């Protein structure tokens, strides 16, 4: 038995953050999420060069952001490595061609 005022509270909360419900799935849209937890000093150490404390507490969203950034950096690293490889081959081909042309001329 749910109290009427409690039901009103639940309904008000649902109106604010509606759910999409199917038989085996519940989903919702996440918008306007304000971070109210205490700031982690980890980001300050990364961006402002401040010294880290012994223990670093990090919010899940901050960890997710760092994970995302690391993945992006890894991808960028891979593509740069590929470019460097191609450029090395091009340079080698050009150098070889130049050497052949010079030798041919002699």
């Amino acid at each position, binding site marked *: 038995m749910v109290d009427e005022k409690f*039901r009103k509270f639940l309904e008000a909360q649902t109106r604010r953050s509606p759910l999409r419900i199917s038989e085996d*799935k519940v989903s919702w849209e996440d918008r306007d999420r*304000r971070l109210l937890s205490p700031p982690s000093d980890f980001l300050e150490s990364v961006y402002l060069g401040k010294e880290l404390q012994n223990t670093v507490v990090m919010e899940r969203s901050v960890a997710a952001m760092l994970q995302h950034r690391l993945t992006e950096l890894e991808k960028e690293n891979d593509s740069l490595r590929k470019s460097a490889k191609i450029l090395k081959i091009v340079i080698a081909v050009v150098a070889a061609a130049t050497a052949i042309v010079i030798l041919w001329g002699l």
Partner: protein
Amino acid sequence: MDLEREVKSRFVGNEEAIRIMVLNQLHPRSTTLIRAPRGVGKSTLMLLMLKGLCGDDLVIVSGASEVKRGEVLGRLHIPSLEKEGVERVLLAAFVKAKGKGLDEVNRLNPYTTANIHHLMQFGEVWAYGQRTRVEDYTLVANENPMDATSFVHSPPFYDRFDTCLFLSSLTLNEKFQLQGLLDKYGQDLVDSMPQVLSFEELNEARKEVAHVDLDPDLTGCINLLVRDFQACIREKERSEVKPPTLCEGCHFIRDICGSIREPLSERATVALMHLVKAAVWLYGKCDLEEVFRICLWVLPHRVTLVRTRNLLADFQDLLERERVKMEDRNFRREWPLLNELVKGFNSAAYRLAKDAAVEDISFAEELVKMEDKWVQEGILTREETLTTQMGWRMPVHRRVL
């Protein structure tokens, strides 16, 4: 607003405490406790508020002087007894006055305190076998907890105070302001305080405040906040062993409940409701931030923390954790999920709710009650429930039978 302005124009600093004190006057039988070290202005603030509301209709009982029963409750009318053999009670001025002040409550003897406790609890006094109903009033008390010559009063007595205002000493700049005020008002701040509104006008305002309808979100937030400061999966209210020993090995050891030794009473909810209604009536709105600000003046004197270094700072930390918890609840959509489950069992919603309940005791309590119902209806088996899977022992008396 006028009252707040008049008090602030005679009392330096502590603006937030004065604002809360004014809000607290807007419900019947209002009680305020002021706690501060000596010489910070406890008595002055008490007198300013009482004068502003009641004019000369105020009586102060001082714990620092000898207080007799007759001065607080009443005394026998001897001529009536001698001539007519009738026991007539002459009520004390303190009982009849609209404005009641208790100076240095910590020095009041236990007998006087017990009588005042009864007055605050039931709105009546007993003297010589006669019961007298006390009309609406406003009561302001003050105490210095550091005072060595103190009686230790019981927690239920302090619980009867709607708010407890902690005053801080004046900063350098504020000391100059105080000297300016003393010069302006001829060294007597209290005498210069006018009666800002009559008690009848105050009663009218109190009636209007009582009829304010609160938003379901605000009511929910207040109830949830108080519940988070009470809830314990191991029932600390009934347990002989108290935190931190009780919390050893508990799943929720890092939660707010693990920092509270003696939980809040339901009077905390009532006091918070009164203040939030007063804020809505006076300012036209009250948001979650305001509720958290008000909490700091309503909750600390009602609970005992496991470890206290600085009560207000410790409490501010707890409230900050509570705020993060509320945000996490919104993020997990706990209440919309529960709303869905109230309508009927849904396995997907139940799975998510179960995940959330593992980290939220107040939410778990609600879910467990519903699980009991589903087990009885054959929708779930006992083995599938949260209590079985987490090894929690929910009290039998809370179960849905």
